[in-house]
């Protein structure tokens, strides 16, 4: 699936819910189900301290595709991290750089990615793009 298709899939899943609390239940579920973060990567340089919550992010290039791992100490943030990983992990640097992230807006979680929110997510998305740039440069 392309990044675009994955985003549409997420939007589809969330569209089932009218009520905020149901959406957040799903996020919590996604957060709980997220693959556990490799403790070896829980290091200072992988930490994004959003003041309200912490986010960890690790990235590796495997066969030309970026494999992201992420975590957060807040379960709702972790749920959003899970969505971001699902959409972006396993894609090439170019794909990641070319695609806009429109699903966050569409499913009504935009506020969590506002620069005035101090949950670490804005910085995380920036960091994911930065990894893509860096790996692209390395590949030449």
């Amino acid at each position, binding site marked *: 699936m392309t990044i675009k298709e994955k985003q549409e899939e997420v939007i589809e899943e969330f569209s089932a819910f009218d009520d*905020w*609390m149901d959406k*957040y*239940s799903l996020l*919590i579920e996604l957060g709980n189900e997220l693959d556990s973060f490799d403790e070896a990567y829980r290091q200072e340089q992988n930490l994004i301290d959003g*003041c*309200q*919550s912490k986010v960890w992010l690790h990235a590796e290039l495997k066969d030309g595709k970026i494999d992201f791992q992420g975590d957060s*100490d*807040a*379960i*709702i*943030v972790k749920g959003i991290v899970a969505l971001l990983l699902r959409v972006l992990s396993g894609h090439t640097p170019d794909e990641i750089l070319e695609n806009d992230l429109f699903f966050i807006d569409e499913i009504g979680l935009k506020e969590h990615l506002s620069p005035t929110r101090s*949950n670490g997510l804005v910085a995380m998305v920036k960091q994911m793009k930065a990894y893509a740039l860096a790996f692209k440069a390395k590949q030449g």
Partner: protein
Amino acid sequence: MAFDIQNIRDDFPILGQKVNGKPLVYLDNAATTQKPVSVIEAEANVYRTINSNIHRGVHHLSNVCTEVFEDVRQKVKDFINAPSSDEVIFTRGTTESVNLLAASFGETFLNPGDEIILTEMEHHSNIVPWQLLAQRKGVTIKVVPVTDGGELDMQALGEMLNEKTRLISVAHISNVMGTINPVREIVALAHAAEIPVMIDGAQAIHHVPVDVQALDCDFYVFSGHKMYAPTGVGVFYGKRKWLEQMNPYQGGGEMIDKVSFSGTTFNDLPYKFEAGTPNYAGIIGLGAAIDYLKQNHLEEIWNYEHQLFEYALDKMKSVSGIRFVGEAAQHTSVISFLLGNSHPFDVGTLLDKLGFALRTGHHCAQPLMDRFGIPGTVRASFAFYNTKEEVDHLVEALIRVGTMLG
């Protein structure tokens, strides 16, 4: 006279809002309070009818505006029972007031090796100014520990006082736990050793009676925006004997007597500490806030708030997995808690979706968070426009949120 909560609520236009489709329940009063119509209009009316730069004007508007402005100084003096309105200095807020003291008192009286005493429950605004000063001046900061129950360890405080101690600066009420500190005792203790005391009244000025003469404190500071007044307004009260000796704070218009490049002399109190055009429209709003509080009978407001707090604490105890941070005997209407092992951010975010405005995080009191070994708390802080029904709804919401977060 009965305290009519519906009338009161009608005075605060914002309270009628819906948030995320739910009626707003505003419980973030320790961060900032809402404003009654009379305050909003007082400030707007300055601009509609009398706006003009104050002091030294010969024209009508300037004189009227100056008089209304100076009247507020009188109102503040009465509100805190200061001996003289010359001792009432307007600032931008509590933070600026503390910085004023650190700069002026610090530059005048402190020398390398001197000590000042703070507490583990201080707001960053009563910590960092002293750290910056300590760096500049080679002063040492001592910290009074907080007990498990969220009170000051008074014995430790007593043992810290020595001949090098130059100042104690302490919160009247903790912004995290609502603990009312025994400030009168602290002042008595300090004065026995001839040490002055600053009280950070940001969380106290609107919740408990403040009488600076009864407290006998040397300095008392607070913010307007936390007492139903506009943003950008603060008060610094200081005893005349200190203010007269202290170096001026900032330089500029107003605070001078004569300026020349060969030598400048300073104005009398209170102007010596007020450089530049003050936020006179905001300050006139502060006057309206004081009037509003008095019209609604301070005693009744305080009683109501206290009942509401007791009701809330009692009800909230029933929420399974709730842990309170700070359970001091003397307490105002601020309740910090954690819900099981849930992250405060999660609790706050879900409550927001249900219409509740609560604050989460370290509340600008990281040393206190470190003391309790927690990253933050969820904080419900009540004002006299909150209701028992709101408390009931909060408790229902907490149960729901607690279940969701497992």
